[in-house]
């Protein structure tokens, strides 16, 4: 611990803390612009300058380490005048027209900093040199005129996301924020995760869709969970007048450290499909609006008119656990209908659960991805299917992370790595054998195995040469590897991991796949046509097989939020809430339960899958159980290591 004095007050901080940390722990504050708690301190803006007794010059508190016996002062004439001078220089450098900026009136750190210093004007007139506005990106706009060169966006893009799209060209006051080698953002390597926008302290990076829809304080903030993939990133859904305005990463919760991907941040806001507003029935070939009572009665009639095995029921994993539980209970347990499936093709959760049942819990939580020295990534395109997990590896790939990637197609997760071995193919059994040979230095087999897989021996040696000695070896498993037919390879892999102390992380596909697997849903079982086909699509999509199965069925019931090819052919359409219109639980890959809070009130006419099931159940004289939680938690404990 280090002891120092801030503004006359003694304070004790951890070794390695900065002066800024000490100032804040002591209960004081200095303004900052380039500093961000999630980023490596950079010290470029100099706004956090403080007086340190004995130091010749003012010290940037965000980068200078706290030392024993330091005497720090934050609010002296010298620091105040320095802050004003720094702000004057920043304002004079570019073109800050606050009056029409989206960030004005509360949302701009720069403006707030000026207010805090009681600045009423800029002592230095700007040069009025125009800077480039890059509006080529569909989700956000880059206005170099409002850039203060703090590089928070560049650092977020590189340090946190590991994408390194953003950078600067030129030097000094002519510095320009650019993408790649100065190509338009919309044509760059940008993956549209929007984290740069969230980290920008001014109006230099502006979210297109939410611009001018209200200041932060005008918006209602709802903490909720993203359910697009199996990571369960914590996010803040921002609404105004019951309208979805913007989604940001939650800086205070979740393994995602305030980061989101495109699907989490922009997809719900960019949603352009047409909502269904009323229950509909097909009469004389046309869909006509009917009441909920009529629609639900018509469904009940169909259920009663058919044997259980003539009914098939399918639900999207984009539903809360409560709905998955009720759906399974209603169709599988009570009615024992012909087929009850979870839509989608990712069997990871189910295969993994099966394996765990056999050999005991083996999975590690997602946070092990943040700090590893070797990553073995088998059968998953992380950047595409679980982007935020991909960020954690990509950003380490820029340093000395060793990566072995096996997938049927090239994936981008290792693009920045100079320590990478990549196998493109699907012979995962051979891949696991190879790993075993490396781990146990079974030299005799190695060259043949490498040759068989088409891998460069020298590079393989570099990446996998001392597997056993690795302290932080992580094996990531995804959908290609974790297919049911690869169970033996999976078993062998987990045994190997146990032998060499590697952590295993499984990425479990879309939405509530994990919970679905625990309820015993059939997964990736091709849907079959049936006399009555019940499809709870919600706000999700389904594949062509499902569409064909629906088409071949006699009576088609589709519960959906949006118009689609599925609703077009349905006999009954039930308008359904979307994820952000309902409160419900979500189980992520880690086995952590997250509660999604309703952010928007659905328009009249929409009902959730769960509410509809409850009505259908009562029509059949059933009461659905709501006690899913204990069973889920118990099962998770048998799969994920605590």
């Amino acid at each position, binding site marked *: 611990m280090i002891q120092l004095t801030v503004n006359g007050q003694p304070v004790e901080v951890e070794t390695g803390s900065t002066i800024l940390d000490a100032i804040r722990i002591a209960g004081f504050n200095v303004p900052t612009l380039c500093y961000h708690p999630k980023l490596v301190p950079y010290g470029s803006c100099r706004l956090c300058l403080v007086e340190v007794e004995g130091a010749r010059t003012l010290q940037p508190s965000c980068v200078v380490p706290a030392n024993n016996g330091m005497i720090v002062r934050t609010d002296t004439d010298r620091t105040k005048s320095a802050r004003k001078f720094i702000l004057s220089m920043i304002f004079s450098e570019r073109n800050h027209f606050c009056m*029409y900026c989206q960030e004005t009136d509360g949302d701009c750190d720069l403006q707030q900093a000026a207010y805090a210093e009681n600045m009423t004007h800029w002592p230095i007139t700007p040069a009025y040199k125009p800077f480039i506005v890059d509006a080529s990106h569909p989700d956000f706009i880059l206005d170099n005129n409002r850039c203060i060169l703090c590089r928070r966006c560049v650092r977020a893009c590189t340090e946190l996301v590991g994408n390194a799209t953003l950078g600067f060209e030129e030097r000094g006051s002519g510095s320009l924020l650019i993408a790649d080698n100065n190509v338009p953002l919309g044509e760059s390597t940008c993956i549209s995760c929007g984290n740069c926008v969230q980290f920008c302290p001014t109006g230099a990076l502006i979210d*297109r869709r939410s611009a*001018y*829809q209200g200041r932060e304080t005008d918006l209602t903030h709802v903490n909720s969970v993203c359910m697009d993939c199996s990571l369960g990133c914590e996010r803040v859904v921002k609404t105004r007048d019951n*309208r979805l305005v913007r989604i940001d990463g939650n800086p205070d919760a979740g393994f995602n450290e305030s980061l989101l991907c495109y699907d989490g941040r922009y997809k719900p806001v960019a949603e*352009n499909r047409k909502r269904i507003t009323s229950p509909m029935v097909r009469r004389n070939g046309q869909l006509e609006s009917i009441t909920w009572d009529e629609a639900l009665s018509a469904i009940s009639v169909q259920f009663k008119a058919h044997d259980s095995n003539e009914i098939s029921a399918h639900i999207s994993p984009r539903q809360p656990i409560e709905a998955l539980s009720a759906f399974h209970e209603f169709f599988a347990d009570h009615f024992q209908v012909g087929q009850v499936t979870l839509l989608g093709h990712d069997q990871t959760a189910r295969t993994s659960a099966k394996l765990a049942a056999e050999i005991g819990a083996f999975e590690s939580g997602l946070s092990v991805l943040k700090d590893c020295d070797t990553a073995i990534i088998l059968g998953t395109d992380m950047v595409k299917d679980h982007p935020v997990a991909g960020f954690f590896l990509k950003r380490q790939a820029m340093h000395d992370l060793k990566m072995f990637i096996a997938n049927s197609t090239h994936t981008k997760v290792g693009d920045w790595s100079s320590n990478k071995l990549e196998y493109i193919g699907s012979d995962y059994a051979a891949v696991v054998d190879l790993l075993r040979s490396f781990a146990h230095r079974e030299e005799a087999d190695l060259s043949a195995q490498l040759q068989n897989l088409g891998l460069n021996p020298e590079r393989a040696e570099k990446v996998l040469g001392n597997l056993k000695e690795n302290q932080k070896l992580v094996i990531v498993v995804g959908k290609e590897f974790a297919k049911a037919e690869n169970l033996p390879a999976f078993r062998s892999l987990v045994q190997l991991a146990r032998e060499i102390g590697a952590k295993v992380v499984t990425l479990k596909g879309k939405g509530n796949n994990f919970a679905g697997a625990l309820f015993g849903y059939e997964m990736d079982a091709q849907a079959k046509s049936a006399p009555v086909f019940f499809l709870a699509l919600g706000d999700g999509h389904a594949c062509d097989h499902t569409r064909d199965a629906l088409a071949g069925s006699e009576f088609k019931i589709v519960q959906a939020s949006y118009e689609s090819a599925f609703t077009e052919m349905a006999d009954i359409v039930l308008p359904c809430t979307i994820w952000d219109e309902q409160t419900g639980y979500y189980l992520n890959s880690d086995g952590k339960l997250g509660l999604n809070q309703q952010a928007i009130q659905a328009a009249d006419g929409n009902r959730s899958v769960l509410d509809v099931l409850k009505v259908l159940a009562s029509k059949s004289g059933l009461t659905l159980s709501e006690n899913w939680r204990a069973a889920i938690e118990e099962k998770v404990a048998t799969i994920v290591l605590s």
Partner: protein
Amino acid sequence: MVTQKITIEPVTRIEGHAKVTVHMKEDGSVEHAYFHVNEFRGFEKFCEGRLVTEMQQITPRICGICPVSHHLAAAKAGDVVLGCPPPRPASLLRELMHMGQIIQSHGMHFFELAGPDLLLGFDADPAIRNVVGLIQADPELTVKAVRLRKFGQAIISELGERSIHPTFAIPGGVNRTLTAEGRDRILAGLDDQVETAKLGIKIIKDWVEANRETVDKFAVFPTGYLGLITPSKGLELYDGDIRLKSRTGEELEVFSAQNYLDYIAEHVEPWSYLKFPYYKKLGFPEGVYRVGPLGRLNMVKHIETPMANEELKVFKAINDGAPVENTLYYHYARMIETLFAAERVRVLLDDPDILSNDILNTHQEPTGHGVGVIEAPRGTLIHDYTANEYGQLTKVNLIVSTGHNNYAMSKAVDMVAKEYIHGPDVKEGMLNRVEHAIRAHDPCLSCSTHAVGQMPLEISIYDHQGNLTQTLRR
């Protein structure tokens, strides 16, 4: 021939910078008077490269008197450029804000800018011929006038948080709903303002009666008349087709704002930063027309609110149904419109959709080009934007309300100068009448040149050799 020149600079109690030069003949009569708009800002150029979505905030800075007009015209142009027509409740809310602006702007002009001339007299001492003088002369009326303007401003701030340069309309709709409490706050003050509008109408009617001779010789001349109309050709201030009537009152055209370039062109004179719009088919200057309250009431068939429609009938009877050409009737028309706006506020607030939260269409199908038109207090306002595929503006053209009246103001200045100025001993009151020829139009020169200004008054009289012989200043 000896020519003298008088300069009136700046012209006051108008919005913007202008001056008047009066060229005089040897015999002390006026040869010609020019209305110079003396300022230029360049919005058409410097908005290039900015985003369509920023224009709702940039262009109101053209004019702080009617910022809402630019705010809404920019939003309407944005609706078309980005292909996102607003839901009905959003249009109602935008119109409500616009009515607030009509009330505040018309109210302020009638009582606080033109009022001193009408109520204290053209020849009153310029030191007291202003709103402060009015406070002293008739405090009760002044308080009513202040409250009328306040009511309009309060509607704007109820919706857009601020009365000047609000943030409310965005392409596709508006960014906040009206609450039931907000609606009730507005409704609570409405009856009093209807009464003040009626009082204004009475004041101007009485004034016209008492000053019949002045009204009939003060800048009376024919022009065309142009403005927006409802589908049944009634008075419309927020959205509709544009109707153009001839100087004799026949309908010449009804067209969509999107096609304005087929009908309207602008002429440039070297002596003014304000261009001269005209009807293309008749050319310049035959095709000139008037906009604003007088232009609109001459152009419409009826008004769709009952009290204002009754007044319109009286107005239409002034010239037996033919267009009313007297410049001073602008004041009368302005008060009828104020009454309309107050009545319209009630219609809008009574609409069940006004509290809806269906206020923004986020589904965009960009077209790359769009024209936004609105009837600003001073007349038809046109914003014409062309954007690239990213919504960045490549071309901006603005034809602003006061611009349409440029010819009329120049003509009125010339006529009034000729009527009232007689040298060599030029009295201040004569010059104030020349200013009033401009003031009656309630020009907004900041708007019209997208520059700002004012019209204080200084008159310099030069002899034919260009020597200064007399300077008059107020």
